[in-house]
């Protein structure tokens, strides 16, 4: 290898020499990074919220933020690199349009970003804080859990930071590995006082983000980064709200309830199609949307009907949010259950790099779980 490297370095004409130098290695082995584990299914074009425009997920976020800065003069957006448009382009154009005092970079410090955001909110202004990756939210954990979540309760409702919304890119992306793939919703689900919301698509993202911003409680909004470009829909240009804490039944079914959120909803849709085609099994697919406070009624109503529940998320299975759903459903629907509740989730390991295709709860693992539940 060293000899080949020296050959490459010594000559000016790069490519040809490179091929000559490394040719003895043979053809490169391709690991299929490119193939996504899901197909994005756009929702039907919304008709109730006025004219629409083709937008991908990051553009739908920009649209929500644009609407907010336009209608709320106190609103400010801040975090690392948001000024030039953000590493995922969610804030492109906003600083030019609304001014540098409203869209600005902060120093590289998540505990500062969230702490500062709490203060802005406490003073009565609308604070939209960006954490660059959900994987980096942990320095801000104290400010979120000990401060933001408890501000209203501990002050007897004299003070609150309901005007705070924290946004962060979330979930697997094909090559993100340990620190660009995490889904930390379970850590925050255990924290009364905040809301945790995860959209599955551009239309959902804009409506849910606007609801989070309008909501009078501090909210964490996780954005599935793998969908930023891949998910494209017709999205209303005007502001609109999608209610929080209301799970959505995407398709009705009679045999198995499938619950997921974010990217995994699209995997479940495919699993439902596979189950129908290969097993003649009718699945009800539910997008939970709000993790905290979560819509127990919709999920339980569905399980009472179907008798079987599969919950799936990328985050590790132990202590993951599927455990909470499973526990509540078995309390409320015990006698309706035809099979044990299945959880198809990430393994109890850090999120791996090269092993991602084996780590994620893909459609085959979910399909297999459905099969086992039906045959229980």
């Amino acid at each position, binding site marked *: 290898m060293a000899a080949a490297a020296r050959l490459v370095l010594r000559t000016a004409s790069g490519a040809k020499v490179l091929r000559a130098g490394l040719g003895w290695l043979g053809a490169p082995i391709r690991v299929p990074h490119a193939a996504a584990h899901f197909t994005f299914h756009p929702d039907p074009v919304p008709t109730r919220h006025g004219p629409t425009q083709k937008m991908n997920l990051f553009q739908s976020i920009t649209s929500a933020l644009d609407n907010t800065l336009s209608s709320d003069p*106190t609103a*400010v957006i801040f975090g690392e690199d948001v000024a030039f448009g953000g590493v995922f382009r969610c804030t492109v154009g906003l600083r030019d349009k609304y001014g540098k*005092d409203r869209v*600005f970079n*902060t*120093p590289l*410090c998540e*505990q*500062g970003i*969230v*702490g*500062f*955001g*709490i*203060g*802005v*909110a*406490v*003073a*009565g*202004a609308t*604070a939209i804080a960006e954490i660059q990756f959900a994987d980096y939210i942990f*320095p801000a954990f*104290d*400010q979120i859990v*000990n*401060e933001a979540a*408890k*501000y*209203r*309760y*501990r*002050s*007897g*409702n*004299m*003070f*609150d930071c*309901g005007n705070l919304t924290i946004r962060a890119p979330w979930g697997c992306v094909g090559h993100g590995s340990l620190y660009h793939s995490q889904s930390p919703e379970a850590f925050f689900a255990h924290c*009364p*006082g905040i*809301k945790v919301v995860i959209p599955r698509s551009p239309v959902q993202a804009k409506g849910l983000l606007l609801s989070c911003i309008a909501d*009078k*409680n501090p909210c964490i909004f996780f954005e599935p980064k793998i969908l930023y470009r891949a998910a494209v829909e017709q999205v209303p240009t005007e502001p609109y709200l999608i209610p929080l*804490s209301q799970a959505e039944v995407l398709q009705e079914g009679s045999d198995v309830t499938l619950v997921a959120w974010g990217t995994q909803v699209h995997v479940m849709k495919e699993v439902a199609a596979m189950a129908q085609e290969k097993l003649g099994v009718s699945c009800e697919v539910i997008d939970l949307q709000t993790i905290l*406070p979560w819509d*127990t*009624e919709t999920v339980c109503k569905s399980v009472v009907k179907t008798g079987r529940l599969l919950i799936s998320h990328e985050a590790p299975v132990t202590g993951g949010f599927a455990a909470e759903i499973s526990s509540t459903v078995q309390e409320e629907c015990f006698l309706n259950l035809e099979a044990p509740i299945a959880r198809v989730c990430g393994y109890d390991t850090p999120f791996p790099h090269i092993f991602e295709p084996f780590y994620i709860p893909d459609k085959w693992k979910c399909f297999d779980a459905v099969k086992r539940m039906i045959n229980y």
Partner: protein
Amino acid sequence: MAALRGLYRTGLGALCRRKGYQGFGLSKEMVLNCYKKMTLLNTMDRILYESQRQGRISFYMTNYGEEGTHVGSAAALEPNDIIFGQYREAGVLMYRGFPLDLFMAQCYANADDLGKGRQMPVHYGSKDLNFVTISSPLATQIPQAAGAAYAVKRENSNRVVICFFGEGAASEGDAHAGFNFSATLECPIIFFCRNNGYAISTPTNEQYRGDGIAARGPGYGMMSIRVDGNDVFAVYNATKEARRRAIAENQPFLIEAMTYRIGHHSTSDDSSAYRSVDEVNYWDKQDHPISRLRHYMTARGWWGEEEEKTWRKQSRKHVMEAFERAEKRHKPRLDLLFSDVYQEMTPNIEKQKEAMWNHLKHYKEQYPLDLYDK
């Protein structure tokens, strides 16, 4: 302001008996008010500390020796300036007019507590007086105060934000975050560090090796000053000037007030375990903000033995009356355990509340229901 090479002081105390000590033209009314607030706090501290010892309240923290930092800074602010504190700033709240009844209500967690009985004693807050409710985690208020100052700057409302913390809390990452953010984002804020020598048992030489907290300011691009925290006039002047400039120039200012924690950290602490009685006595007898101010008032002919005797009796009476009222008052009604988690009641919390009431129906003798409002 010749910051770090020295300690800003006005010589309040023995020096002010000298001819020519000006006292900065503060009116008699204002100076007497400062003195009365400092001594009222001291009296309230003694009574509430004692009440914890007797098992009447669960916990207490005194402010002995630091009354000058509270009142000097509070006197330099306007009523609508926003205050973020740590936990040893009761005098700031008292100066603003927080009544004894409400101090007591919070400590007793009774039905009059504005905080609805949810927090430990001394975790005061007052929306009307712009004093943000205290929380136990240290230094969390520092970046929050920077954020509030940013919002205040955008309002153009001529207000400043002041943020209090101790020299121990200044070691937290949140302090670094708050200082850096306030400087880069140009926030009109005063960071007021009470350097009182100890963080529970940890003396300053185990807390930092640099030149205190004020020396860190320039590292952030922040103007800083170190003041004699037991010289009320020095604290007042520094805060007043910092306020003026913070608003005019939209930049942060750091004041490190050198003082001494005469009392224990809290009722859970016995400081004789880590410091000598001699050390404490020195500060109590030789360098106390209250006696130093009294020297000045006596020298001006504004105060004497008679006034002192009358005021001591009067302030003690007021405190005792508030104390007795607070003690008799019921605790807040039980539903308040469940409200204000979110702005609205959520289904899961509502269900849990019903479950609790249901439980009480069957097990009420096991719970001290009589102490609580219905």
